[in-house]
């Protein structure tokens, strides 16, 4: 008799409680499902070329002192400019070097373009030795604590930028540059511009 009474009471209470539990379980389930969908659809940052903060903008200052060559002021520059970030410990940078030399020898002669390199996380002595051994006659700016690279949004070398004579950054090259490609781009922009 007494058992029957408690059973009835439990049944009365059980109804709203199990409904609440079902609601809670369902909402947790929905949140979990949404998380899974988000994880599946979000793109991996490594899979795509990362955006650049300077592309299409006027070029940030090149602050480092000149280690090699003449001091350089980007504000008074009136030629096409290849700004190259590099380090001597970086193998792709060493592989890229002949292309930069080609570019400089070819285009500096005509006064159409020039190359400026910025050291990234490397010692001044190592850079000087590298240029003595591998050649290359253009301005090389000191790493400046990596601040110039930070302003340009550079985190991995080699990375280069093509800056128009107007001072606007028009191209970004992640990885080594190829002289012929850069020349082609400059020609194309000049045709478009004129």
């Amino acid at each position, binding site marked *: 008799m007494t058992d029957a009474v408690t059973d009835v009471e439990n049944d009365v209470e059980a109804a709203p409680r199990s409904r609440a539990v079902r609601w809670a379980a369902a909402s947790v389930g929905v949140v979990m499902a949404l998380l899974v969908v988000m994880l599946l659809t979000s793109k991996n*940052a490594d899979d795509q070329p*990362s955006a650049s903060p300077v592309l299409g903008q006027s070029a940030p200052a090149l602050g480092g002192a000149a280690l090699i060559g003449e001091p350089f002021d980007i504000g008074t520059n009136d030629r096409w400019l290849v700004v190259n970030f590099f380090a001597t410990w970086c193998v792709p940078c060493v592989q890229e070097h002949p292309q930069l030399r080609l570019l400089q020898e070819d285009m500096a002669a005509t006064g159409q373009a020039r190359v400026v390199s910025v050291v990234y*996380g490397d010692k001044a002595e190592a850079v000087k030795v590298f240029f003595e051994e591998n050649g290359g006659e253009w301005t090389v700016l000191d790493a400046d*604590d*990596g601040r110039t*690279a930070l302003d340009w949004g550079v*985190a991995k070398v080699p990375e280069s930028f093509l800056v128009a004579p107007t001072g606007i950054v028009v191209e970004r090259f992640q990885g080594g540059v190829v002289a012929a490609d850069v020349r082609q781009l400059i020609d194309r922009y000049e045709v478009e511009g004129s």
Partner: protein
Amino acid sequence: MKVWAPWMAVLFVVVAALFVGTVGQQEPTPTERAQSVASTIRCPTCDSQAVSSSDTPSAQAVRSLITDRIEAGDSDEAIRDYVDSRYPGQNLLLDPAGSGFGGLVWALPVIMVVVAVAGLVVRFGSYGGVSRTASAADRDLVAAAQQASEDDA
């Protein structure tokens, strides 16, 4: 009055602790500020290491920037935003932003606590206060049961 005394004591301790924790602290030195900002920014070339604990060139650059911008009088938030803007799409901020979609990370736990407390109050609030008095029918039921068990014995 007596019932509320312990609650007032708890409230006093909480308020005092919050006051000391927020107002009573000394202004951090520039070095401490730089350290705390550096610990909330991910090193751009690392996977999940803070700038403060990394020795890569990119981390050194960010540390140098933080020091200079603090000297120049910039706010911590402005420095964080600038570094984040240099590497778009890379989620460099280890502490999620306080506004926008990222703000959910901060708001959700608070919302959950409020909802949970509200739920508990609603659920258990009905237990107190309601005194149950036995009706005449209840007494009859008990009397009948007692009679029955006495009869059995």
